[in-house]
């Protein structure tokens, strides 16, 4: 649905994007993470037709974002990082204005506005002025406005910034629901736990380029989380010391950590060595209740990739 190939963009001689590439399939919920100034907002603005790229190509549903801007605008719903709302408009007026701005007319207009009010949970406050709403309500109103014209693609730039925990949970649920309804979503955020929970994949960006993790991946699979190679967690019933002794005596296996009734071990070689380890542990009479490859959280992986220069 979204194809970005070697996209470049500079501002006054400073590179905002430097040959960044990404492909997002239809119905996919893709996260975009990177440090401040990495180029996330620039990329999203290019896809939303707000910025023309200097080079490379970006297409949405096969349409070049620089060639047919009106078609892209009809396909895309864009929610900026700093929400802009007309504070002196009433909630319903705000949605009606954008329904008109998206050329929604007749019965479709009132349906779209009513649906927007229901979707944002603001039906009972439709006559209230926008300035009277809480930040979370405003964010919901903005999302409802973004969805008014039933876009196929959602571009969300840091939508969870400033939201309280309940509002964040609500936003996560809404995004997952929208993804399940078939919308393609690209969402940038610094709240990695949220992305980890809802995204199918997360793209890494740094200094305008595709960033890669230790295994050379620039797009991380989130669901299911990709396990880290060669590390295993073993949990046994009873004392842990016999298990440490058994595991430690097996060639190619190193005990990294033992805590409570669990062991973290590193196994040299492939899955066959892991199977051999399991056989040995069970064969020694230990009651194994868990044997699995641990997964790094997105936050841990982020720190590995981007945290080098920072404390």
């Amino acid at each position, binding site marked *: 649905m979204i194809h970005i190939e070697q996209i470049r963009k500079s501002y006054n001689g400073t590179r905002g994007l430097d040959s960044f590439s990404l492909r997002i399939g239809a119905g996919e919920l893709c996260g975009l993470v990177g440090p401040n100034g990495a180029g996330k907002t620039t990329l999203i603005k290019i896809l*939303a037709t*707000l910025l023309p790229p200097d080079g490379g190509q970006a297409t949405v549903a096969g349409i070049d974002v620089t060639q047919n801007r009106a078609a892209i*605008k009809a396909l895309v719903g864009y929610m900026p990082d700093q929400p*802009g709302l*007309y504070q002196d408009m009433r909630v319903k007026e705000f949605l009606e*204005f954008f329904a008109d701005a998206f050329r929604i007319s007749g019965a479709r207009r009132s349906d779209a506005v009513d649906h927007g009010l229901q979707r944002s949970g603001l039906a009972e406050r439709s006559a209230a002025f926008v300035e009277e709403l809480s930040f979370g309500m405003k964010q919901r109103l903005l999302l409802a406005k973004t969805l008014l*014209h039933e876009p196929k693609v959602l571009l969300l730039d840091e939508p969870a910034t400033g939201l309280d925990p309940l509002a964040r949970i609500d936003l996560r649920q809404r995004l997952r629901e929208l993804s399940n309804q078939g919308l393609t979503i690209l969402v940038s955020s610094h709240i990695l736990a949220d992305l980890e929970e809802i995204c199918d994949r997360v793209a890494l960006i740094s200094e305008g380029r595709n960033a890669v993790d230790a295994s050379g991946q620039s797009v991380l699979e989130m669901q299911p989380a990709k396990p880290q190679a060669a590390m295993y967690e073993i949990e046994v019933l009873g004392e842990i010391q016999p298990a440490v002794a058994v595991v430690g005596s097996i060639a190619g296996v190193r005990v990294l950590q033992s805590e409570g009734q669990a062991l973290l071990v590193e196994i040299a070689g492939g899955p066959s060595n892991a199977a051999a380890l399991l056989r040995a542990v069970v064969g020694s009479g230990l009651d194994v209740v868990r044997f699995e490859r641990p997964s790094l959280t997105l936050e841990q992986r982020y720190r590995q990739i981007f945290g080098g220069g920072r404390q």
Partner: protein
Amino acid sequence: MNPMVRKELRQRMRERKGWILPSLYLFVLSAITVLAYYGVAFTSGQEVQGFQVGVALFFAAAYAQLCLLLLLVPIFSAAALTIEKEQRTLAGLLTSLLRAADIWWGKFVASLLFVLLLLVAGLPVVSAAFAFGGIGPWEVFMMTLTTLLILASISACGLYWSSAFRRSVHATAVTYVTVVALTVVTFVVFFITESLRGAHDWSTMPASVKVPLYFNPIFFLTMAFAPPRELYPEWGACAAVYLAIALLSVLLTLHNLRRAGEGT
């Protein structure tokens, strides 16, 4: 109706200045007209004919109206686009199906309609001159048309500055500088050129000396009171200059709006 026009009008009429400014404007215009009446009727020291009072009242009201509106127009136009940047709503407009021309038209019509409201509200005051004679509907029509043309051009100019700057305060200041340049600087340039060239007779004055005056709104309004057959070339030249200013402003504003995404 263009949704931008509806939105702008609704928002403008909700603002406090939506009723304060027309009230102040009418108060000042009425006060100037009353002062002009007393000035002509009671201080000239000789018997004054009714039509003389009418003409004096009309000119006082017409020029006062133009000056007042020249002061007010930047308030309506220069902040029109910068406010969208300041409250971060421009991105929402640019990513909707509204074209740059729709956005411009909505802003322009809203600011001009407000000026038109003031102009219409002032008509009874200006038309008080009818009671004394000396003034006909033609003069009122030409005064209204010329004032509107000037204000439309200044509005377009203000919108251009509004598209060029990020802050309302800067756009408004530069629009006022433009108004002062057109109103005062053109007179100064004309008088300097006239003195240097020694060309004091208007009928034989070279066009190059007259040119600065064609940009001057006061001169433009004065030319509107010429008899219909004498409107060309002076009034026509002024109208062409103001239309050119408006057209250039529109094109530059649309250009800025199409690349306004970088400032969102």
